[in-house]
């Protein structure tokens, strides 16, 4: 950011902005970072708060002793209020449940084929799904073909969430602030863990390949059997997490760094977007998309669903792994 600001002072955009704003630039005074309250002051304030609370209680007690009944009533009132709060919370819970139960008792019976939820949309997916999407698993065909736009938004939600966690929890290694450097040194928790834990490492040695292969199988067979990008991606992510816990960051950084994360996610999302735009464009204009559907049941079938599944799986696996590293260390 700082490098960009140097250009910003002389840029045309600033001139334009001052012209629009009438010679005032909100950023010209410099962005003032919000004041960080030192830990000691914070703790003092907490202590102060506790002391004040104790003092108040003491005061009410003494006052209740020495003075009239009104003070006793006040001290008693707080206690009554807390009890009242608990009772009322249980009553509120029961009330909500009762009202909802009353609603449920008016709903149609579960498991009945004639329910209004089982309408012509579901019938269409089941009857024509195999011919139109080529996927044996109708659920996958539905979420990656009929409703692929929905799933694209969903992958973007995952990406945005990981970005938000990155903003909130990342500790910048290049920062000049002393306290942040100290925090990075402290959060490097390999010092406190048993290094080279032989039991964990041997277990991981056996388990990680199996978990990874299982994850890849789930992703690749998404259109043939239960599974798909979301579940397979989560399994892959947990395999990466297990490897990281057993062998540490140094070995992991040979395989997975921040750069890899950025490139993989960007490529996967872009490919998804382009592929789906193409198929929507051709579909809306009644053109031949030229993507072969293949024979149902073969692994290379069902057109775009297999590559899209791989994209979604990559995004989900990266997101899960990044959540873990950010929560544990504040960086990748």
């Amino acid at each position: 950011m700082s490098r960009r600001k140097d250009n910003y002072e002389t840029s045309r955009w600033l001139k334009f902005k001052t012209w629009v704003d009438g010679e005032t630039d909100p950023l010209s005074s410099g962005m003032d970072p919000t004041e960080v309250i030192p830990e000691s002051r914070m703790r003092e304030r907490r202590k102060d708060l506790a002391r004040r609370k104790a003092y108040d209680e003491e005061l009410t007690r003494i006052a209740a002793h020495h003075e009239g009944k009104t003070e006793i009533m006040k001290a008693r009132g707080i206690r009554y209020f807390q009890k009242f709060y608990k009772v009322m919370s249980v009553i509120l819970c029961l009330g909500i449940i009762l009202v909802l139960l009353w609603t449920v008792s008016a709903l149609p019976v579960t498991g009945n084929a004639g329910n209004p939820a089982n309408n012509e949309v579901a019938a269409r997916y089941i009857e024509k799904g195999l011919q139109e999407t080529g996927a044996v698993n109708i659920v996958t065909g539905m979420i990656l073909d009929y409703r692929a736009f929905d799933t694209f938004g969903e992958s973007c939600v995952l990406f945005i969430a990981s970005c938000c966690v990155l903003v909130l929890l990342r500790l910048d290694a290049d920062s000049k602030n002393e306290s942040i450097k100290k925090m990075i040194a402290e959060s490097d928790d390999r010092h406190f863990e048993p290094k080279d834990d032989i039991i964990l490492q041997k277990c991981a040695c056996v388990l990680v390949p199996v978990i990874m292969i299982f994850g890849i199988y789930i992703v690749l067979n998404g259109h043939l059997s239960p599974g798909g990008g979301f579940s397979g991606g989560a399994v892959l992510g947990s395999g990466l997490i297990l490897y990281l816990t057993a062998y540490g960051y140094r070995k992991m950084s040979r395989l997975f760094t921040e750069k890899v994360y950025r490139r993989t996610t960007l490529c996967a999302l872009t490919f998804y977007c382009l592929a789906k735009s193409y198929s929507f464009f051709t579909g809306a204009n009644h053109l031949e998309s030229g993507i072969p559907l293949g024979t149902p049941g073969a692994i290379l079938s069902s057109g775009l669903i297999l590559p899209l599944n791989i994209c979604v799986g990559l995004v989900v696996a990266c997101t899960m792994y990044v959540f873990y590293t950010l929560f544990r260390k504040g960086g990748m």
Partner: protein
Amino acid sequence: MLQHLSLNIEETAAVILFGVGFTILLLHRNLIKKIMGMNVMDTATYLFLASKGYITGRAVPIVVDGVQEVEAYINPVPSGLVLTGIVVSVSTTALMLSLTIRLYERYHSLDLDEILIMAKEEEQT
């Protein structure tokens, strides 16, 4: 009414779970407990949705032996909706937990009431 409730027990359980989760979310002071309540509410909603698509005696919506009659499979639409919902609920959970960590770093407390009192004092000074 009771007989009807016993016929759709999944929905009854989902509604009870929703109420419990809502109460945890609203009335616990601990932030981590609140997040757990939110998750319970999430799963309750998914259970309700999935039970809407379930049809007794029908199989998983995966085409076997080329059978493509509507009478053979359950409704695939709620499954697809819930599948995407589960993954989104993880990302919201991660976001809320990271916010909780930041709050704890600043105020050294998980109690929402204490945090509110301290934030108010900070504003006044």
